[in-house]
């Protein structure tokens, strides 16, 4: 039987061959609960009334959304999470340690072929490491902590082939925005994505994580890449179990096949309020901006900060522009400090904040835009009111586009500014 990656991984965890459309009960390797859902998860656990939670030790509690807590309720949820982790032996990532989707792989908690669930839609990120990662809720993780298993509907898969390599100044973000423009938000609803091809092979791990992460905006249940030497080296360096890549079979059945000419892609941007209102950056060059954000689980990694620093080092952002950079984790922050990126960005006028989810969604309350302000952000969602003011606009683009736009105060094609064609040495 020829299997997709989703069928292969879910089948291995169910213990028999499965096909798209089947509903299966599968063994879960690792689970994640973050602080925006922990209150609910703990209430569901209480309802469940299980005396023992044998799988709690394979669960991470992450304090990232309400980091730092904006009110006593959030601070109290944090206290409850710390206590639960201590009593039940769950892994704890405290305030400032980082965003769940960054600290899970960094902590070596899973490897190729694993099945990982998290209380967050962007749990698709784990697919960058050849794992089936998917978003669930409090009831689900309660079931996992009690039984080590969960029900899944095996998704159909869209196979995406990236032909050729991305040109300098063009990133995984631009690939996903292109897909969003083509398929529409929720265009992959209920489905898994597989990304293949030279364009993926040429990407660094950071960019591959963006690709898998951002699949959530397409509605995808999972987004899985095959593993190569880069993946395995990264997993080993972070202490994961010995990786063995799971591969899709030739002849696997896909609901759709899409080819993207990666070498021909240009930087893309999603305009206000709709993540699938995507156009080429060159078509909106000159649009005035007020706030520039680099961060989040989608694009707050070292490579994103390197892109920004390559553009902003030794310069100043435009007068009147507020720029915030939020590294995705403490490890990313430390690496950026060692490389001098924090200094370069701070000197250029950006505020570099402690790791967390704060710049993505207005729940820490420290980033509320004013009326008619235009935010250009490397985050993942831009619906009206996302940052706490429905009269503001959020535009979504790569870290390079955000940095170039901060420099000029207007939407700018990074390829047209000094340092905007930066790319890591192979």
């Amino acid at each position, binding site marked *: 039987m020829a299997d997709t990656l989703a069928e292969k991984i879910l089948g291995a965890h169910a213990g028999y061959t499965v096909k798209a459309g089947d509903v299966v009960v599968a063994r879960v390797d690792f689970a994640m609960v973050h602080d925006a859902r922990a209150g609910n998860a703990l209430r569901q656990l209480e309802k469940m009334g299980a005396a023992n939670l044998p799988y709690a030790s394979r669960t991470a509690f992450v304090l990232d959304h309400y980091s730092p807590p904006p009110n006593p309720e959030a601070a109290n949820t944090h206290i409850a999470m710390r206590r639960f982790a201590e009593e039940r032996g769950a892994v704890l990532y405290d305030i400032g340690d980082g965003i769940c989707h960054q600290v899970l792989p960094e902590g070596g908690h899973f490897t190729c072929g694993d099945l990982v669930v998290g209380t967050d*839609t962007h749990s698709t990120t784990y697919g960058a490491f050849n794992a089936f990662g998917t*978003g669930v809720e409090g009831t689900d993780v309660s079931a996992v902590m*009690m*039984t080590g298993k969960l029900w899944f509907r095996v998704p159909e898969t869209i196979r995406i082939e990236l032909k050729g390599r991305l040109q300098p100044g063009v990133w995984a973000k631009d690939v996903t925005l292109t897909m969003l423009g083509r398929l529409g938000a929720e265009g992959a609803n209920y489905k898994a994505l597989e990304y293949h091809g030279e364009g993926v092979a040429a990407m660094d791990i950071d960019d591959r994580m963006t690709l898998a992460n951002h699949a959530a905006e397409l509605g995808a249940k999972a987004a899985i890449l095959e593993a190569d030497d880069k993946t395995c080296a990264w997993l080993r360096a972070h202490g994961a179990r010995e990786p063995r890549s799971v591969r899709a079979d030739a002849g696997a059945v896909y609901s759709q096949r899409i080819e993207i000419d990666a070498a021909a892609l240009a930087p893309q941007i999603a305009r206000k309020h709709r993540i699938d209102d995507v156009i080429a950056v060159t078509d909106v060059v000159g649009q005035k901006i007020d706030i520039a954000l680099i961060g989040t689980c989608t694009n707050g990694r070292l490579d994103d900060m390197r892109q920004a620093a390559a553009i902003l080092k030794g310069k100043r952002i435009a007068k009147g522009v507020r720029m915030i950079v939020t590294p995705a984790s403490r490890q990313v922050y430390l690496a950026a400090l060692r490389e001098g990126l924090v200094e370069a960005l701070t000197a250029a006028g950006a505020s570099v904040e402690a790791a967390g989810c704060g710049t993505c969604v207005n729940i820490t309350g420290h980033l509320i835009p004013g009326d008619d302000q235009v935010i250009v952000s490397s985050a993942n969602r831009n619906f009206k*009111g996302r940052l706490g003011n429905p009269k503001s606009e959020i535009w979504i683009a790569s870290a390079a586009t955000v940095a170039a736009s901060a420099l000029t105060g207007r939407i700018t094609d990074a390829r047209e500014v000094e340092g905007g064609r930066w790319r890591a040495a192979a």
Partner: protein
Amino acid sequence: MQNIKGKAHLLPEEINTDLHCSAKYMPGKDTAYIAQHAFEQIAPHFVSRFKTGDVIVAGRNFGINSSREQAVHAMRLLGVAAVVAPAFGRQFFRNAINNGLPVVECDIGGIDEDDALEIDLTTGVMRVPERGLQRMFPPLPAAIQTLLAAGGLIPFLQRYPDWKTA
């Protein structure tokens, strides 16, 4: 599984339940408060017109984005008997099943506000008997119908702690 009979309450497409039916943007508010203010921004007086046992009939992608489970808890408090939409946000769909709230993926064309609906989840038929209107939909897989019939995942696991129903 029992048939569902209730009045239709229409909502538009692409409803973000985090925005309209959760405390994500109302920190500290409990589920009872959320339930009393559900969807008021998009459908004024929604809650005052909604009776226990009624049905939400929404446009496509109901519950898109991160969709907190609390939205389903609030709908259960309101007594929502089922949600019908041409397509759901993935997370909402899962949360609904885990909490014993039937979700019906079905064409809603022709359904009006206050229509008296009858839904048979097992055979996959939705009808408005008064007007002779009938819509077919693919019934949910048997395993999911079992979860729904148990009242959701928690009561299911309390009854079948090893997931085995046979």
